[in-house]
């Protein structure tokens, strides 16, 4: 029998808050962290907006990702030394590659994704060396899925997922060149949506076998009930329009959770604000949930698209959402297509149940789905 997987600690650092509580309050108040970029010149790009953490240290020899992770450590509770570590990042300290190319003296090791796992493991005094998972914008969701799978199968008792990504000129210029950026702050699921807005952030999620968590008196913030990962096998940068990969991932998650689609109370969607992603997601949700109208939200209109950190931040926030019984507003959304009616809202909406589906998709045609259940609290 599979072991129950509890989440006993969850934190997030974003441009909209130094911690999870601040982020939650800011979101419910309808605030957005998306603002004109001052970190680098955006003169040649198709957007001038991103959600940057204002006072992040972007100078000196180290990548700004070290400062970001440093802020995360301060918010985290104690992590057992025998915890297995998965870090998740798409581009780690790629800001140092930019600066290396500009002949600045920087610590080049920060550019390598494997270095992040090493740094986090060392900082937290973990016995086992960490592993980084890089799977585009589904990186941290897949890390949570892997962690939950290990605990459920009895291969680990504690798994920490630590994820982080930065707003850098490297990434900003790339999405601009691809034409995937919205010239204005992103509008997830809106019929006038025209692209994504980048954001930066980090999150940590501590997964623990329920028996051990009870023994150690850890809080029960939520349970990872199900998970699924599937590839579109369609295109590297474009999602499959019929949402086949996402549907497959959600079906796997439901099967593992032992739930029917009717049991899902709300969906934290990837909701990037690009025409193709949001269409693909709504198509998949139509297939999975039929005419049923359940709350669907995206937080990327408020904190931007945090790439590899998105899934982790959304899990952390999803736990808050379940405990408060509220789906946060989808900022930037005003009026969508027919299949957004009674689903997506620019206002907070009550969640009529205890099960949240959280989904992420990314370059390479990868899709991940997680099903979270409400916890019993402290």
């Amino acid at each position, binding site marked *: 029998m599979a072991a129950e997987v509890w989440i006993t600690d969850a934190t997030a650092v974003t441009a909209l808050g130094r911690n999870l509580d601040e982020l939650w309050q800011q979101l419910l108040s309808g605030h957005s962290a998306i603002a004109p970029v001052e970190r680098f010149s955006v003169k*040649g790009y198709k957007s001038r907006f991103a959600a940057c953490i204002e006072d992040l240290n972007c100078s000196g020899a180290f990548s700004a990702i070290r400062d970001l992770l440093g802020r995360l450590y301060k918010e985290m509770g104690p992590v057992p030394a025998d915890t297995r570590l998965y870090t998740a990042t798409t581009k780690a300290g790629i800001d140092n590659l930019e600066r290396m190319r500009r002949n600045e003296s920087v610590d080049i090791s920060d550019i390598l994704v494997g270095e992040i796992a090493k740094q986090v493991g060392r900082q937290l005094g973990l016995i086992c060396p960490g592993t980084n998972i*890089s799977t585009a914008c589904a990186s941290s969701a897949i890390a949570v*899925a892997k962690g939950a799978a*290990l605990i459920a199968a009895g291969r680990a008792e504690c798994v920490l997922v630590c994820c982080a990504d930065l707003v850098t000129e490297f990434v900003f210029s790339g999405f601009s060149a691809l034409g995937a950026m919205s010239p204005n702050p992103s509008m997830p699921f809106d019929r006038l949506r025209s692209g994504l807005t980048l954001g930066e952030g980090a999150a940590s999620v501590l997964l623990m076998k329920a028996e051990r968590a009870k023994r150690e008196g850890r809080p029960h913030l939520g349970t990872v009930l199900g998970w699924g990962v599937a590839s579109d096998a369609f295109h590297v940068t474009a999602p499959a329009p019929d949402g086949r990969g996402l549907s497959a991932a959600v079906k796997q998650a439901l099967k593992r959770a032992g739930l029917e689609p009717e049991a899902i109370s709300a969906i934290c969607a990837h909701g990037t604000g690009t025409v193709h992603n949001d269409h693909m997601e709504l198509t998949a949700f139509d297939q999975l949930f039929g005419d049923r109208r359940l709350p669907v939200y995206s937080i990327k209109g408020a904190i931007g698209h945090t790439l590899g950190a998105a899934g982790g931040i959304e899990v952390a926030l999803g736990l808050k959402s379940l405990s408060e019984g509220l789906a946060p507003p989808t900022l930037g959304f005003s009026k969508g297509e027919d299949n957004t009616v009674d689903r997506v809202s620019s206002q907070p909406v009550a969640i009529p149940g205890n099960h949240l589906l959280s989904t992420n998709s*990314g370059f390479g045609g990868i899709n991940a789905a997680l099903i979270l259940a409400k916890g019993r609290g402290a």
Partner: protein
Amino acid sequence: MVSGKLPSISRKAVFETPYLRFSRMDEFSRLGVSAVGLALQDAGLDEWTSKREVGIVVNTVYGCLHTDLDYFETVTPENGAFASPALFSYTLPNCFLGEAAARFGLTGPGYVITEQGNSGLSSIRAVLEDMDCEDFESALAGICDLGCPPEFPIDANIIPGAAFVVVEKKPDMGLKPYGSLHLSPAQEIFFNKTRILDFSALIKACVKQLWGL
């Protein structure tokens, strides 16, 4: 294993049928997709009619760092006005997994892992764990690296190249496996009951099986 120079990879050397996207890929992706293709050919699984729930897990140290450096060269002039979308599309190390998934109809999970140490076995370990966790029953596990870029000051002594093995939990009767893999509780990997210390040792052990050495 002694490191040689990685030859340039032509489509025709690996794929018999036209593959338009191949020439558009970055070098890292061409290397990875070629190795995936060769592994599937070797297993007799390269031809398909309907998509298959097969995963791909790859271990890499430098990932697409060469492409990152090439891409940023296009950003620097004119404030990014000429940044290359074609190169940017390959600045994620998992992009070649998407290419391989589309080419070979593989719909299972695909992810890139990087961990400390140079054994290259973390992808095998991950696949065996995933199978134990019932996440999938069939997958490719491999290594892929172009080596350290010439101007990059951290050389982790990674041999350039790529190799994949096909791992099946319940092999089809038509397949002829090289042997069986086992993951011990201490995370050690055994191939045909012999402990394997790195990826090249696994390949050598497979070749030994093939030639009956």
